[in-house]
């Protein structure tokens, strides 16, 4: 059986998820025993437009990005969104809470009107094209990535948790942030990261996006009981889970 050809493409992002693949280090040899990378800017010079699987990193922030993504979608049998920027738009969606012109001037000052700095509302990959598989997180989790690659190689659907992060905190015996009256987005966020942030004494930032059917209304309702406000909740949600319009939790 010939190995599936894989191409990795970056859009608006820090390229940290590609770096996570590079960080597999000794496992890289195992990885290429299962798939054949043909385009991978961070790790090889060669490029090839003949591929079976496209890994998309980064969010879509310009009209020309949408065209490029559609062209990739047309060539690929399987399109995988890699990391929070691609799966949900990620931190780049913060800008959707502001006027685009205001955002450009804040970042680029007098140069804001230069044509190559044109910008649009940020989108995740699936707001532009159909996505077959998601590798959630900021950055994506190496172990989950390898699980997904192996599953695809076996022709199996990868098992991606569809429950909230609370499950992994309970599995680890991590003390809940709400015990200390702190907001944690774990109650509405998809697990699969093994909850490193709460176990390190932080709250869940929500980088893996909402769990399916998140009870955001319940999150709003409980804020008062912890002497917190809905605005507190919104300010946390904005970081990774902003939308096409200003975030109202």
């Amino acid at each position, binding site marked *: 059986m010939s190995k599936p050809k894989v191409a990795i493409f970056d859009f608006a992002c820090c390229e940290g998820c590609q770096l996570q693949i590079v960080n597999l280090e000794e*496992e890289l040899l*195992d*990885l290429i*025993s*299962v798939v054949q990378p043909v385009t991978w800017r961070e790790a090889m010079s060669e490029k090839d437009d003949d591929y079976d699987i496209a890994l998309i990193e980064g969010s879509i922030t310009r009209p020309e990005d949408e065209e490029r993504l559609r062209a990739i979608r047309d060539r690929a049998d399987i399109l995988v969104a890699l990391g929070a920027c691609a799966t949900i738009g990620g931190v780049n969606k913060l800008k959707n809470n502001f006027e685009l012109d205001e955002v450009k001037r804040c970042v680029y000052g007098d140069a804001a009107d230069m044509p190559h700095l044109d910008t649009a509302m940020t989108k995740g990959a699936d707001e532009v094209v159909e996505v077959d598989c998601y590798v959630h997180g900021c950055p994506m989790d190496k172990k989950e990535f*390898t*699980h997904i690659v*192996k599953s695809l*190689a*076996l022709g199996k659907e990868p*098992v991606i948790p*569809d*429950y*909230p992060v*609370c*499950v992994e905190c*309970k*599995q*680890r*015996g991590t*003390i*809940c942030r*709400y*015990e200390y009256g702190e907001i944690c987005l*774990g*109650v*509405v966020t998809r697990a699969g990261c093994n909850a490193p942030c709460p176990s390190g004494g932080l709250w869940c930032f929500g980088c893996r996006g909402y*769990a*399916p*059917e*998140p*009870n955001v*209304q*319940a*999150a709003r*309702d*409980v804020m008062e*009981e912890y002497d917190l406000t809905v605005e507190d909740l919104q300010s946390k949600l904005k970081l990774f889970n902003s939308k096409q319009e200003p975030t109202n939790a």
Partner: protein
Amino acid sequence: MGIRKLSTASLHAWVDRIIAGNRVIGIQAKDDKFAFAPLSAAGDLRLDHDVAYTPPKAFFQPAIETLVRYRGIEHESVVDDDPFVLFGVHPYDMVALNQMAEIWSRDNYDPHYMSRWEQATVVACDVQNVSENCFAGCMGTAHVKEGFDILLTKVGDSYLADYRTEKGEKLADLMEQSRDATDGDLRARREVWHANNRLLRRHELQMFPNNLPELLEKSYDHPVWEEMAERCFSCGSCNLCCPTCYCFDVQDDVEWDLQSGERKRAWDGCMLASFAGVAGGHNFRGDRADRYRHRYYRKGKYVPEMIGECACVGCGRCISACVANIANPVTVYNRLLEDE
């Protein structure tokens, strides 16, 4: 078998001797809570804990464990047979462990769970400080009569160590400076039990637990399920922190050769949205309210009908763990009783 009395200092010396020759998991401080963890010195043991944050089931049914290692169709079962001492189990948790041993050994005997149970020496300990949500007194679990190898009870400044089994006696043999308990000591211990039965009632169940199956029989369509479930995050916290929730999911973790790997099981919970999902994308408890109701039926009806005991032992962990504050079994069961 017997009951020995030893001072707190002697108890510490005894625990250190146990640690010297055994793998000991003991209750210890974890931030401002308490947790079972490998114990390296008697001084770290906190028999005055109010509740262990994670129930001791984690040492018999780990959150994630390997069941089978395989290569192609060749495979071998993985059974953990490393003896250990579990030190500082509260009575309600002991009752839960007894129930779990019953459940994991009936029908399909589970060698993974039962091996750990057989290898364990369990030192139970009567409650000295009541946690914020404990209602064991209402559930008949403030005190435990069986299942442990040793039961420790603090009486005044000393401890009584009641050892019942060969494994318990083996540990008791390591005691120095102890004496047989007197009738007076045993009277004092009974007073502790009576007091705990009164004190472990942060919430007051308005019925006897053995009336729950009958009450639930009539309550399937009660509005409380919908009302409470509206605020449910489907996060499973109430399941996973429960000492008698034992459901699991099984997945393969395959190696890069795509031939060999490990079959693992992990804690699962009936409050999670896809828990009752089956092939074809169907889910026979797709609604939050259906899932919410199911947990109360498991604890109060289905498991009791299977093993003859209420599966809620009143530890109160679910009440503390539920961010939405909707998981209190006492609130729900009392409401059903009021509306009967």
